[in-house]
């Protein structure tokens, strides 16, 4: 296991190199000039030139990239073009919110997804199955901004049960939880739908397995047949989906963060892209890639707990 973690770590380094080069070059190829974004639309040529020189944007591409990489290797992610704030600090402020949101919505997604998936699998082709399938598909098809706006209108503006947006209280307080509910639901529905569908098909496969029949032949209670003998086996592909979704969520989800005024990594990245704040884009993409690999690693470790057959050399 340790060996696997170490190997993944090496792979991660290569991946990050690749990603950073890709991001760096695409930011340079894409139209839009960081200097204009700092100087504003009416900045004069001399103003822009001063800004460019100051940021080193007049150097050749490879020189800029080399400088960036050597800083990163030294542990310095650089400073924002826009705010001149250290990138690591900017990310450190946003990441906890994204993390909270990602965890909350994956919890919601897992609970809803597994339960609906289980129901539809156990009552295959019944009206319950059709209903939950329909719900799952509705969940996957509703655009997030739409769902978010409607939830806000309903629960925050009309009923006034929950705050409209923002995320300022610690998650363990009542306020903190209230702030999380709507965005987590908005964000979680898509993943819930995926998890539900995965659970359904995986369960349908596993309930056919011989060992489930063995369990019944032993006289095991139906409840235990499902929860002990079936579910654990069915979870293996579901875990992959959960992991993939969680990885994506951890990278921040622009629309939900925007709609609920959450100060998260997704918005940071999108704002940085819009403002051509290269170092900030780099920093957030590297964070996302790292998280992605990390989550995959965790998923793989979870596998070994769920399925003893899986071993990592």
């Amino acid at each position, binding site marked *: 296991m340790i*060996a696997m973690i*170490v*190997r993944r770590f*090496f792979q991660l380094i290569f991946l990050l190199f690749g990603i950073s080069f890709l991001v760096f070059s695409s930011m340079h190829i894409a139209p839009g000039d960081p200097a204009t974004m700092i100087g504003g639309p009416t900045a004069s040529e001399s103003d822009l030139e001063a800004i460019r020189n100051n940021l080193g944007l007049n150097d050749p591409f490879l020189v800029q990239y080399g400088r960036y990489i050597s800083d990163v290797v030294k542990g310095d992610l650089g400073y924002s073009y826009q705010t001149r704030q250290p990138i690591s600090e900017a990310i450190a402020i946003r990441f906890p919110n994204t993390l909270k949101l990602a965890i909350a919505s994956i919890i919601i997604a897992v609970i809803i997804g597994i339960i609906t998936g289980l129901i539809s699998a156990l009552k295959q082709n019944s009206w319950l199955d059709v209903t939950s399938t329909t719900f799952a598909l509705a969940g996957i098809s509703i655009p997030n901004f739409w769902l978010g706006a409607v939830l806000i209108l309903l629960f925050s503006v009309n009923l006034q049960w929950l705050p409209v947006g923002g995320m300022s209280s610690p998650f363990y307080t009542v306020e903190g939880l209230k702030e999380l509910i709507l965005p987590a639901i908005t964000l979680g529905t898509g993943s819930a739908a995926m998890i539900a569908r995965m659970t359904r098909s995986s369960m349908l496969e596993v309930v056919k397995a011989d060992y489930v029949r063995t369990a019944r032949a032993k006289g095991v209670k139906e409840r235990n047949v499902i929860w002990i003998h079936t579910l654990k086996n069915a979870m293996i592909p579901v875990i992959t989906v959960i992991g993939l979704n969680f990885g994506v969520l951890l990278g921040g989800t622009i629309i939900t963060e925007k709609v609920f005024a959450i100060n998260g990594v997704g918005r940071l990245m999108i704002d940085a892209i819009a403002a051509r704040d290269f170092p900030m884009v780099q920093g957030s993409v590297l964070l996302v890639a790292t998280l992605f690999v990390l989550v995959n690693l965790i998923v793989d470790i979870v596998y070994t707990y769920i399925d003893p057959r899986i071993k990592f*050399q």
Partner: protein
Amino acid sequence: MPIAVKENQEQAVLLELKGVKKYFPITGGILKRKQGDVKAVEDVSLKLYKGESLGIVGESGCGKSTLGRTILGLEELTSGKIIFSGTEIQHLKRKEKLKFVKEMQMIFQDPFASLNPRQRIGHALEEVFTMHTNMSAKEKREMVIKLLQEVGLKEEHFDRYPHEFSGGQRQRIGIARAIALNPSFVICDEAVSALDVSVQAQVLKLLKVLQEKYQLSYLFISHDLGVVRYFCDRVLVMYLGNTVELGTVHDLFNKPLHPYTQALLSAIPRPTVHSKHKRIQLQGDIPNPADPPNGCSFHTRCPIAADMCKTEKPVWEEYEPKHFAACHFAGQSIL
């Protein structure tokens, strides 16, 4: 007597194996370095004569299939020589090998698994000609229909999918595909094990008929000794990648030299209620092929193992004419 008939042909060696080894590397560690080998086939040498059926028996996992696949070049040879019709074929490139592919064919254990479930069987058979000949579509179709008839199927089966056939029929298709290019050598890798006794009997008959007709040589892999006895001329017994005994059916079944052969023969459940055999109970399970025991690989389960068996590897010797074995106590009964 078939054996007598084949005595004359013995001179014509079709296939010769010399010291064939096949190891599968076990990799591990951070850099996926090689950590050891599964010694699936360990030093096999033998000759196969034209028109004969050579049976290979042995416990599951002892390397029978690997040997078969290695001969066909489906697995890369670790070391040794494979000589087919006088040509060493183990190092040939794919292009050069195509010629031999036509000569050497294989019938697989699971007739269903060895057919592409999404291909009509007619097309599956046509594909063989597409790959190796320049026949026109019409010629191919005619050939396929002839083939189908040859194995007892009909033209109307041409457009069916594998799942629309019964197990026996599917195995016939597998046979048709194997004989399509007029091979001289066919490996049957447990070709009848998946079939039910009554279907198995049908297929065995068919194989025999074809052998007569085309002078085929079979390498017949099986763990059913009854079938082997019925079908083969000579038998090779393998244990944990090693050849332990080779002899004619008659010799081997009547005078087994190796204790493992003896155990195997005694363990066969006889479909008769009267002559209850004394069974030899082997203790323990088959050792891990990645970590075979020293000395004789069978010593861990051998009832007559002595100290020397634990340290010294027995040599492959011809104890009687055409009857080989590798055992320090060859011929000693273990009952």
